[in-house]
């Protein structure tokens, strides 16, 4: 029994997997088995750890020879395991923490009736044979009567992702039109859009930033249910909490962004903020440093002269590097091209309901899009001239160009967005200067303290301000998922043990093999016969061909004899001889694996069961 059952398990599992590989409907079984295999492999590591602990603890307790080394193994094992399993010193995952949002617990079942949206429809019931997407499974339901779907129901607001998931379920127009109608019905009201949302997977009603009084009133008026009012109370309380954060002197050009004026109070050494700070708010707070703009030749020369005039001076190479980097900034032509691209009018995609109406009206050749009716907008000569003149003028405000550009010719909102987006992507002057400093000290060159200060003072200020604003964001945030961080996050104790113990130790162990391989080769590889000579000769050519000196040795050969250059011989050996030999070996290995597998599955080879003496 003890040996028969394992034999049967191995045979059945193996043979079933072989058979399923040939049946299209069951091919995925192999993938599932591979996942199960991975799970058991991970558990086998636990088994390995347990065994290790058992053996070494016994040696320590018996104080047998070398017990102190066993103690080291046990201690390092337990320390690494502890810090890794408990994620010690690891912050919550910044991409999973919903910074800037406040959550209030609210399950789908607690959703008020007022937020249950029903849409009467008449759809074939087989449309729902497909599995409902996981993102809507809690909120979406249907009523079926006589093999016809008569009603679609959605609890809570539907977001864009959920709408798309439902649309993707079927390509039939009547289904897609019904989903579009349901999405419109379950859309979040305009008064709350962009601020409040419902996250079914997190069982939470969420608000971004701080909930103002109008939003609060609107939210409260949705339903009188106790759970809804409680959730609203929690959102109001948490989203209006004031966070006070000490700061150094803000950058000279810092002004509280207009859109956040009602939430921020700035005092001399403190910043008070109402509600949690999200990534957008943080980005707005740190976006206070001037951005680069194209330099004219004179401006480049002036910059280089100024840097060269400082103690330490600049070599010719450094001057050229600085000038090259300054000239490689963005250009007015790039901005003009981006604005012209944004001026191309887009086709409008028709909704499924529009297409359904067309189809029901008898249209057979359905067009999915509506071409634009108005021509594209390209910048005229006056607008281009204005851009060319403005971008290099350091006194001008580039983001304010919009007003003039719109008066000089045709101008679209998309172009305004493109202009802001383009300017946002340009580096700040402190970052540009950092790049220059970095380039100037490569290759052994150096800069004086004054030159570093000239180049890096702004970078220091920008970095410090960014970190303070990050600190403000974290302080104003209530941790939602403390265990969500990466288990090997940089800076954590587990990362430390990997970086400073595991990695160097294993790499050095393997590198040590270089000496042993060389020493073994010296002792074992004697050119006693022709075969040994071939092996040695090939190894010698490969080793030599991969070094600079080896290539140098035969570089003097004329073009007619280039086939005998070491790098070409190496290439021939690797691509023809090595490929041929490896191919034959791999064919042999695969046949060996097949025969071994069959022996195991048929119970001929039972060595894995052990001797049975245990």
């Amino acid at each position, binding site marked *: 029994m003890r040996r028969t059952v394992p034999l049967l*398990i191995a045979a059945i599992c*193996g*043979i079933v997997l072989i058979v399923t590989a040939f049946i299209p409907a069951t091919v995925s079984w192999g993938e599932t*088995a591979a996942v*199960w*295999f991975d*799970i058991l492999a*991970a558990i086998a590591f*636990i088994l*390995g750890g347990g065994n*290790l602990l*058992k053996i070494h603890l016994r040696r320590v307790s018996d104080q047998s020879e070398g017990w102190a080394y066993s103690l*080291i*193994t046990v201690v390092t*094992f*337990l320390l690494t*395991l502890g810090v*890794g*399993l408990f994620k010690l010193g690891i912050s919550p*995952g*910044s991409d*999973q923490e919903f910074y800037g949002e406040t959550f209030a617990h609210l399950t789908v079942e607690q959703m008020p009736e007022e937020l249950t949206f029903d849409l009467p429809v008449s759809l074939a019931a087989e449309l729902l044979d497909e599995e409902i997407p996981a993102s809507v499974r809690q909120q979406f339901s249907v009523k079926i009567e006589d093999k016809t779907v008569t009603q679609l129901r959605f609890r809570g607001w539907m977001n864009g992702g959920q709408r798309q998931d439902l649309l993707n379920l079927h390509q039939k127009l009547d289904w897609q039109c019904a989903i579009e109608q349901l999405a419109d019905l379950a859309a979040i009201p305009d008064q709350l859009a962009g601020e409040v949302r419902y996250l079914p*997977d997190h069982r939470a009603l969420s608000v971004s930033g701080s909930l103002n009084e109008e939003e609060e009133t609107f939210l409260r008026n949705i339903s009188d249910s106790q759970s809804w009012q409680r959730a609203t109370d929690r959102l109001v309380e948490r989203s209006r909490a004031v966070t006070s954060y000490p700061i150094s002197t803000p950058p000279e050009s810092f002004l509280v962004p207009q859109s956040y004026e009602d939430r921020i109070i700035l005092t001399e050494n403190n910043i008070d903020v109402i509600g949690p700070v999200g990534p957008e708010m943080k980005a707005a707070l740190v976006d206070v440093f001037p951005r680069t703009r194209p330099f004219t030749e004179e401006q480049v020369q002036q910059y280089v002269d100024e840097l060269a005039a400082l103690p330490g001076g600049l070599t010719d190479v450094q001057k050229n590097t600085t000038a090259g980097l300054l000239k490689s900034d963005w250009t007015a032509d790039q901005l003009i091209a981006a604005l012209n691209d944004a001026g191309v009018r887009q086709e409008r995609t028709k909704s499924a309901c529009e297409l359904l109406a067309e189809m029901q009206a008898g249209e057979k050749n359905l067009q999915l899009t509506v071409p634009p009716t108005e021509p594209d907008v390209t910048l005229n000569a006056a607008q281009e001239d204005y851009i060319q003149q403005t971008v290099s003028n350091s006194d001008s405000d580039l983001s304010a160009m919009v007003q003039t550009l719109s008066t000089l010719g045709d101008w679209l909102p998309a172009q305004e967005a493109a202009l802001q987006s383009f300017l946002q992507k340009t580096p700040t002057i402190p970052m540009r200067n950092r790049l220059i*400093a970095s380039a100037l000290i490569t290759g052994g060159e150096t*800069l004086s303290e004054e030159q*570093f200060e000239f180049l*890096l003072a702004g970078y220091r200020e920008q970095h410090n301000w960014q970190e303070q604003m990050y600190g403000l964001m974290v302080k104003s945030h209530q941790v939602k*998922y403390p265990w969500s961080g990466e288990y090997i*996050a940089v*800076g954590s104790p587990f990362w430390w043990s990997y*970086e*400073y113990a595991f990695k*160097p*130790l294993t*790499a050095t162990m393997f*590198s040590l093999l270089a000496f042993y391989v*060389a020493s073994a080769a010296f002792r074992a590889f004697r050119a006693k016969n022709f075969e040994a000579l*071939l*092996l040695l000769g090939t*190894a*010698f*050519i*490969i080793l030599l061909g*991969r070094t600079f000196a080896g290539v140098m040795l035969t570089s003097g050969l004329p073009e007619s004899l280039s086939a005998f250059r070491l790098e070409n011989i190496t290439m*021939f050996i*690797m691509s023809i001889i090595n490929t*041929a*030999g*490896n*191919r*034959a*070996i*791999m064919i042999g*290995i*695969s046949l060996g694996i097949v025969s*071994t*597998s*069959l022996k*195991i599955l048929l119970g001929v080879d039972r060595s894995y*069961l052990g001797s049975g003496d245990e």
Partner: protein
Amino acid sequence: MTERTVWTILILAMIAMAFSRTMFDPSQSAGREYVKQVDGEWVKADLIDRNAGIAEVSYDRTAGLWIAAVFTLCIFSFMYRDNPFYKVAESTVVGVSAAYYMVVGFWSTLVPNLFAKLMPGVIQQWAMPGLSPEIEPTGIYYIVPLILGIMLLMRLVPSMSWISLWPLAFIIGTTAGLRMIAYLEADFLSQIENSFVPLIVFTETGIDYWQSFQNTFMIVSILSCLVYFFFSIEHKGAVAGVSKFGIWILMMTFGAMFGMTVMGRIALLAIRLEFLFREWMNIRPY
């Protein structure tokens, strides 16, 4: 002077050199790790960050740097002979690597592939916020690997260790089944398929003699090697000749493999020496 005294003096001299280099390095880089804060996380700082005044010495990473360097030297000490320093490093690598693989297996396999399938709601609330809390229809099947896993752990209990043969049989059976198909597809068939190349290569200008020679040579070589592996007939006469040529090709293949292996190990060695000289002691060509 005894051997022990010589080694003690040498080790003390090395320690003194390392400390003096750390103390008197003009750029204050030797034996130190500098960090800067980026979005709340401490990351490695470069020379520019130090000149900008935003970097600071990290004591835990500096300690790590020294420990890594000392461990590296301890492992190298084995080239002389087995010694207590090497044994300490060896014991550490055993403990750390066993725990490392356990932690990796737990967080990257067991949590997302096992627990998250069986209890998605709990795992979502605990460690994987991005996970859907809804259980998949196939999620319940994952009770099987869980039970097999528990049976595997029974190996730690001597009286129950026979139970671990069942999951072991599952592992062996699935490996045999999956590998058999995979090797037949990836190695056997694809290697044969890739060997079907034209013996005479025609181009727009005529015959490409060099490419034709290469293709012919490769196919003859593969067939010769396979003849050598074919032990069902006696290797004599023409078969012996072909098989002999196969041996030569295999010898050259082994030579190439050996050369590549040595190069790989030497590259690793160079990386370790680079770590000691550049990262630890900041000794650079300029």
